[in-house]
């Protein structure tokens, strides 16, 4: 995380050189008769912060799960760096460079904060069971670098007590620990699922700063949030879902003024707008 390359020109508009990182290509996802995602199509570009918003039950988390390989799309496909995501084992998708946090916190509660982050760092470690058993040099090397990296990341997200069990951390710290654990897997794309849920305004503020800091280290961020105001403050672009369909996409200002989006959020029938 130290090789931060601060992005001085915070992009007011979409970045000029748009290198696609993740392509959601006309994805439809059905569960039995329920259409959770209906022909959703958008692209995430390298280095941006993309907001994925929509009212409750719009399919944000489903879309998120499809991107991280939890569900395979019924139709269409999701490509990361040009490679298909679905059909791979989930831990391999993580190694491709997609990391995520969970809407309802899912840490390893009885491991320390440090160990939680080290599990993430282990994603790229290669020490085998044999080398761990006999304490071979590779084991020591990876153990040391993993530990250092975990300490760095805990400092980065602002957790002071690395030895504390995850379950004993405060709610805000647990949310930040999830982010640190995800970052430990060295992702190119970090997906945050409602990271500000349950936060007060001050905490939301420091979270926004953290998200920008993460982007400045070169990580692309996908942010799910249904608090519109929060999303407006940090994202470069926004995709809006409603009932599993994409109803808008664009710059925050454009999206804010989009009648379909206003209708979706205020509950006015779309055709009245």
């Amino acid at each position, binding site marked *: 995380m130290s090789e931060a390359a601060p992005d001085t020109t915070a992009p007011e508009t979409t970045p000029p050189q748009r290198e696609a990182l993740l392509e959601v290509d006309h994805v439809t996802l059905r569960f039995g008769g329920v259409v959770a995602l209906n022909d959703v199509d958008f692209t995430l570009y390298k280095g941006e912060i993309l907001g994925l918003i929509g009212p409750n039950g719009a399919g944000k988390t489903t879309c998120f799960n499809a991107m991280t390989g939890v569900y395979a799309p019924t139709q269409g496909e999701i490509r990361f760096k040009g490679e298909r995501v679905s059909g791979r084992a989930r*831990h391999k998708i993580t190694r491709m460079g997609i*990391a995520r946090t*969970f809407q309802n916190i899912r840490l*390893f*509660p*009885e491991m320390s904060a440090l160990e939680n982050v080290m599990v993430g760092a282990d*994603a790229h470690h290669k020490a085998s069971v044999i080398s761990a058993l006999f304490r071979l040099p590779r084991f020591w090397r990876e153990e040391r670098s993993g530990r250092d990296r975990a300490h760095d990341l805990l400092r980065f997200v602002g957790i002071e007590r690395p030895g504390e*069990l995850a379950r004993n951390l405060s709610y805000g710290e647990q949310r930040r620990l999830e982010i640190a654990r995800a970052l430990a*897997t060295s992702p190119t794309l970090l997906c945050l699922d409602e990271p500000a849920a349950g936060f007060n305004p001050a905490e939301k503020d420091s979270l926004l700063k953290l998200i920008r800091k993460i982007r400045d280290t070169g990580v692309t961020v996908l942010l799910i949030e249904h608090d519109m105001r929060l999303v407006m403050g940090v994202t470069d672009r926004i995709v809006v879902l409603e009932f599993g369909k994409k109803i808008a996409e664009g710059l925050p200002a454009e999206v804010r003024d989009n009648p379909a989006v206003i209708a979706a959020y205020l509950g006015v029938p779309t055709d009245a707008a």
Partner: protein
Amino acid sequence: MNAHVEKVRSRGRSMRARWDSMPRQVRWIALLALVVFLYLLPNRWFYINLWYFRTMESDMATVLFETSFFVLLAVGLNVVVGFAGLLDLGYFGFFAVGAYTVALLTSPESRFDVGWPWLAAVPAAVAVTMISGVILGGPTLRLRGDYLAIVTLGFAEMIRLYAARNEGIANGQRGIPEIPHPVPSVKGSDGQALFGVVDARPYYWLTLTIIIFVILGVRNLTRSRVGRAWVAIREDEDAAQIMGVPTFKYKLWAFAIGAAVGGLSGALFAGKQSFINSDSFQLTNSILVLAAVILGGAGNIYGAVIGAFITWYLPEWVRGIGGVIGLEINVAEYRILIFGAVLIVMMIFRPQGILPSRRRAAEFADRRQEAAPTEASA
């Protein structure tokens, strides 16, 4: 409310905390003293001075040997159940596979009649059990929780039922006799082979040595990415996978390592008994090992050791205690009943086990808090 949780939790961890806070040298000396004590224990001149700690009715060295192979089993099962959180109800099946592999490879009475020495058969037994663990785990570790428990239970029964068939290679009830003792060329002070029929002490010493090495190995694993992966799987398998843990691979490793230790234990058992048949592998033994692990504190290596020691040693000890305290009734007949009562009392007052892992201690503290929120404020 919090004070109560802290109290329960501190009770769970006080031993660990006290141990951790001791200076390093003190801990090493204490461990060394314990190991020396354990090596001295089966000698008559030593245990005779231990007041009522020794067993009165049964041969101390034999009981200690049986206890030690049981401890080895518990250490192996603890990897599977305690660390990786996989409920294995058929662990004794691996013990049987190990014992039968040794028997078949060494005994002149076996259908194979290859007559290997015991020492050569041990690595083969470990390899065969490990492979059988992988074969069983391959398809079944995709299952979770109760389903895995049922499949493993079935596995142990399958092994036992096959062994009970007269037509099979295991000879059913007639069993396989004349399994050679370990290393006959090593002579004791009396010129006889060190590993003989009468004296159980060498077997105990051998098993104790193996236990020490197995514990060191398991400890190394649990303090590495392997152990972190196991605990992560136990805590939240989906989250572990999404954080890049190849869960299936590590579950299979836990299973294979557990199986290998079980097989090793079986090989020692066969070498000592020099006769095994299908009656040696009753289902209750699987349950007993599991009870030992839970009793001691799943997820803690030393907890499993203590749990197994109590589970095996206590009933044997109770067998001889009746005469000492001057009871007319034969306590030996009630020893399993007494053990059962101890287990129940234990589960009521200390469900997290004697030496719990950090996780269990806290988890049970939480549950109490939920169960008795009013009392908790006191």
